[in-house]
């Protein structure tokens, strides 16, 4: 019981530490303004480029991409802050299972990601008059949740590189940009050149976005896609675990757990 309590305490505290410097008003603005403006930009670009009247697929796709913002920048910043504030070495030296601690820190970001996606969709309804009345809501929510889980897996994988380097922002931005190009949120996968479609299949969110678009077309046979998406998330987490063991050893040997 104590373990579960500690897990949630850790999750909440690490999340709060990221935004403690902001007032509630600024927090809401920071959390909503930047991601939503990105959504508006890409939806308007799609409207112009595709002469689209129904913008629902782009709103849904870009709303799901917003979750990756939390996954990459939220989760990774937690790790980077640990390093900068000198607590990383304390966590590493403690007798607990460190990987569970790091995974625990993603928990609030999953909820936060869900909030971002919901806000994005609401904005789509308000600004672009998208109509979701005919969509299968439970399957749609499942598709969003699995997508967020899967992208968190990649977020953790990138975040643990903070053990050996201070400069992971470049990596974060590249991964985030790859999702913008290859996930199918802005460019239909079939429009990508053949060799680039392979990248798309290896990324999280691709199948969730595809599943959501299928739901929009009234199709409900998306469970296979979602199980693949779930599997992708699990693969990233397993890979993160293996990388963690390697990077922790490397960080201990190289004494790279301090800010400088």
């Amino acid at each position, binding site marked *: 019981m104590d373990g579960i309590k500690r897990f949630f305490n850790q999750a909440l505290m690490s999340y709060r530490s990221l935004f403690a410097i902001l007032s509630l008003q600024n927090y809401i603005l920071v959390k909503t*303004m*930047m991601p939503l*403006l990105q959504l508006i930009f890409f939806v308007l670009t799609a*409207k112009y480029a595709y002469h689209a009247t129904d913008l629902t697929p782009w709103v849904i796709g870009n709303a799901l991409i917003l979750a990756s913002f939390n996954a990459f920048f939220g989760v990774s910043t937690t790790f980077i802050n640990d390093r900068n504030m000198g607590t990383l070495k304390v966590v590493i030296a403690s007798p607990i299972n460190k990987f569970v601690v790091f995974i625990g820190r993603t928990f609030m970001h999953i909820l936060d990601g869900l909030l971002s996606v919901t806000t994005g969709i609401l904005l789509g309804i308000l600004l672009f008059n998208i109509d979701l009345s005919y969509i299968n809501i439970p399957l749609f929510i499942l598709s969003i949740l699995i997508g967020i889980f899967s992208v968190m897996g990649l977020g953790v994988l990138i975040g643990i590189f903070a053990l050996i380097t201070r400069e992971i922002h470049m990596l974060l931005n590249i991964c985030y*940009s790859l999702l*913008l*190009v290859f996930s199918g949120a802005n*460019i239909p996968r079939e429009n990508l050149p053949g060799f680039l479609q392979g990248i798309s299949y290896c990324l999280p969110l691709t199948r969730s976005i595809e599943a959501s678009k299928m739901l929009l077309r009234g199709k409900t046979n998306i469970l296979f896609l979602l199980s693949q998406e779930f599997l992708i998330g699990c693969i990233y987490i397993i890979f993160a675990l293996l990388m963690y063991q390697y990077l922790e050893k490397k960080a201990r040997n190289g004494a790279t757990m301090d800010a400088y």
Partner: protein
Amino acid sequence: MGNVRAFFTSSILHMKQTFSRNMFRFVMLVQPLIFGTILYLMFKNSGVTDFVSHMIYGTGLITIWGTIVYSSASDIDRERWMGTLPILNCSPVKFIVIMSGKIFGNVLLGVVSMIYSTAFIVLVYGVKFYIPHIFHFSITLLVTILSFMAISMLLAGLLTLSRQVRIFMNALDYPIYIICGLVFPIDMLPSFLRVISYVLTPTWAKDLLRISSREMINMHEFYYKLGILTLLTILYFITAIYFFKLIDKKARVNATLEVV
């Protein structure tokens, strides 16, 4: 003569410093490829007339804007954190000369990146692009560079004066892409937003660059828009100089040249 030397020395030193930052390297080298790819894949079968200029100038101006947001806008603050702001303030060369040099360096890097993004789009995607009116294009590019320098100085001043505004520095990219119509025409925006578009120089810069790439130039339209861009640039410079004087005075009175 001393001022000119200080201006260029500050510029060269700043370019070296800036380019050593990972985030800036991302903005300069990776972001153009990402935006170039997204816009190419979205526009290639769109049927939008002159989509090439939307794509090339859109990507280019997005890149220049990125260099401003992620560097120039926070340059004064960065000097403060490095402990060099008091030294710069007390040096015999005027503070604004040193800052202008830095901003010039940034904009120059942005222009290099714009050329790089154009080369990428032309070479990798085989897009046909040429400039039929070199003279008009050169004038436009020159005024565009000056206008971006002016807007950088304005932002640097504004962000230094207000800590609240500084929080939103990272959220300054997409609003400009949207409001200035860097990728799509501003006619798609609601009329109240278009009022803001008209007072922002990137709107006119993009328009002029596109006009100077057309086979047939409407001279009246060209010079009218060039006049507006020049006028706005002068207004920005005047406001920025006022801000810099204000910063100088406030920083001395409130002793805020250092972090604490």
